[in-house]
């Protein structure tokens, strides 16, 4: 079938036609929400009174958020969780990747697959499963701990000081495999002759790890840590399910993402919730920038 010449697209117009469905959706559901959320942060509005009932309140929402005890508490919780789940991911993923890189050939895909599987499964299903594994009297985690170390069963999800470690463990379990894959890819790019030369010079495995492998992995560590920071600061689903959507006893499992969800959908304050989302975004940007600074090579030190 051939269209008449007049109806055929010229190559000049083709890209616009090809891009238009994407761009239309991107503007409506990608860009507009962002702009709108910034606008909303300076308004007071609650959904029952209709869209016309907004009024400008200047910086009130930001002032309110910054004076809100729970907002600060949620930021502290989020920071704690981001560090406690993020740092171990890399401390474990790097040596794991090195082990897999050096010693696994034929079974490599199966092993990597086992570590990666949690990353693609439903957070909700996983969080539900872990709520039962972390149960105080009959949970497998406590049964295992008691078999190994004895002692009293731990009330993981009931006591404020235990909720965060439980959440951090789940997050660690879910994302460590992703990092293993990143580091495996980076390891493959390190030239083999570096190690051969080092062996000739009498460097042992540990020395090779610290003086060749780690420095070569630095760009990937930077990238991986950045992803962990961004991901850790937006934790929502795992703590949401584990604490029944409320943040847990004494709000100790309440991340900022959960708090701003509650601010909007439980407490009906959409303006303050938007202000909080921009404040949290500001934290994400600052921490990403700090990570960048920390990894930037300074004055020739490699």
């Amino acid at each position: 079938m051939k269209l008449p010449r007049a109806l055929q697209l010229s190559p000049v117009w083709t890209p616009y036609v090809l891009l238009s469905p994407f761009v239309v959706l991107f503007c409506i559901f990608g860009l507009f929400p962002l702009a709108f959320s910034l606008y909303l942060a300076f308004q007071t509005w609650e959904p029952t009174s209709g869209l016309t009932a907004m009024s400008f309140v200047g910086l009130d929402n930001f002032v309110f958020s910054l004076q809100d005890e729970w907002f600060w508490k949620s930021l502290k919780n989020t920071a704690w969780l981001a560090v406690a789940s993020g740092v171990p991911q890399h401390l474990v993923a790097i040596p794991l990747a090195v082990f897999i890189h050096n010693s696994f050939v034929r079974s490599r895909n199966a092993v990597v697959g086992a570590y990666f599987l949690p990353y693609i499964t439903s957070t909700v299903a996983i969080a539900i499963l872990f709520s039962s594994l972390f149960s105080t009297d009959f949970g497998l985690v406590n049964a295992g701990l008691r078999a190994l170390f004895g002692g009293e069963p731990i009330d993981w999800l009931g006591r404020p000081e235990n909720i965060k470690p439980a959440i951090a463990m789940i997050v660690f379990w879910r994302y460590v495999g992703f990092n293993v894959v990143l580091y495996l890819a980076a390891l493959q790019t390190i030239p083999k002759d570096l190690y051969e030369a080092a062996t000739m010079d009498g460097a042992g495995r540990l020395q090779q790890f610290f003086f060749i492998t780690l420095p070569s992995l630095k760009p990937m560590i930077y990238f991986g840590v950045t992803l962990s920071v961004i991901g850790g600061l937006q934790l929502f689903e795992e703590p949401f399910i584990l604490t029944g959507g409320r943040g847990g006893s004494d709000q100790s499992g309440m991340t900022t993402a959960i708090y701003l969800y509650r601010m909007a959908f439980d407490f009906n304050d959409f303006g303050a919730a938007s202000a909080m989302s921009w404040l949290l975004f500001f934290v994400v940007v600052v921490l990403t920038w700090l990570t960048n600074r920390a990894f930037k090579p300074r004055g020739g030190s490699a």
Partner: protein
Amino acid sequence: MNASNDRIAPWTAYVIVGIGALIMLAPFYFMFVFATQSRTEIFSLPPPVWFGDDFLDNLKILTDRLPFWRNLGWSLYVALASTALTLLFCSMGGYAFALFEFRFKNALFALVMGTMLLPSFMNMIPTFMIMDALGWIDQPRALYVPGAASAFGIFLMRQFVTTSIPKDLIEAARMDGCSELSIYARIVLPLLKPALGTLGLITFIASWNNFIGPLIVMRSPENYTLPLALRSLQSPVDTEWGALMTGSAIATIPLVILFILSSRQLIAGLTAGAVK
């Protein structure tokens, strides 16, 4: 020389990596074991470590408490619709970004890539309000239409077209009188197949697992997708853990099968941004 060190290392590596892999897989094992146990059996001492025979009873409780098959159907429908739209729009857009020159191309691409790094919580509230304004609350299209504007999809498609479809091929087709649309449909799309497969898998899985989206826009239990339906079974006093585990296992099995069939492709696609 470190000869002894060299001999021991691979052996330790096998043990450490192997134990780690077991720890990673154990929760899945227990999810499937618990799916076949009743609530009282799951919470007995010691907890069950082998399969029981309560799978059908659990399924019965699940279908009594939830419109479970309908929830499963919605999950599948939303995931398929989302995948189809994403593949169509992102392949068109990625092709345009890769092989055409047009005004504001670089600025637009930078803008799209910039949103890829935006945290998901930024969109939570405005998305609800837009859906409310459009009258899309409690409608499945509120879940699959926005997702089709996937920055990651555009990135993946553009990357693939740039590296694997030569511009000369498109020029030659044009010289032969092939119309622009049939170049896309008959030349570009077939060549994109591997990338479409990867993006399709990733989109399907993301939609299947999506929790925040349905949490914000879906209202009536019969319109819930699976994750939302399962979470609605959780209650502080009387949670049917056996049924909940059966539901979680049913939500997880399709993913495990997809992963076993295509783990290399999936892993490569999901880490595409990091590993060039």
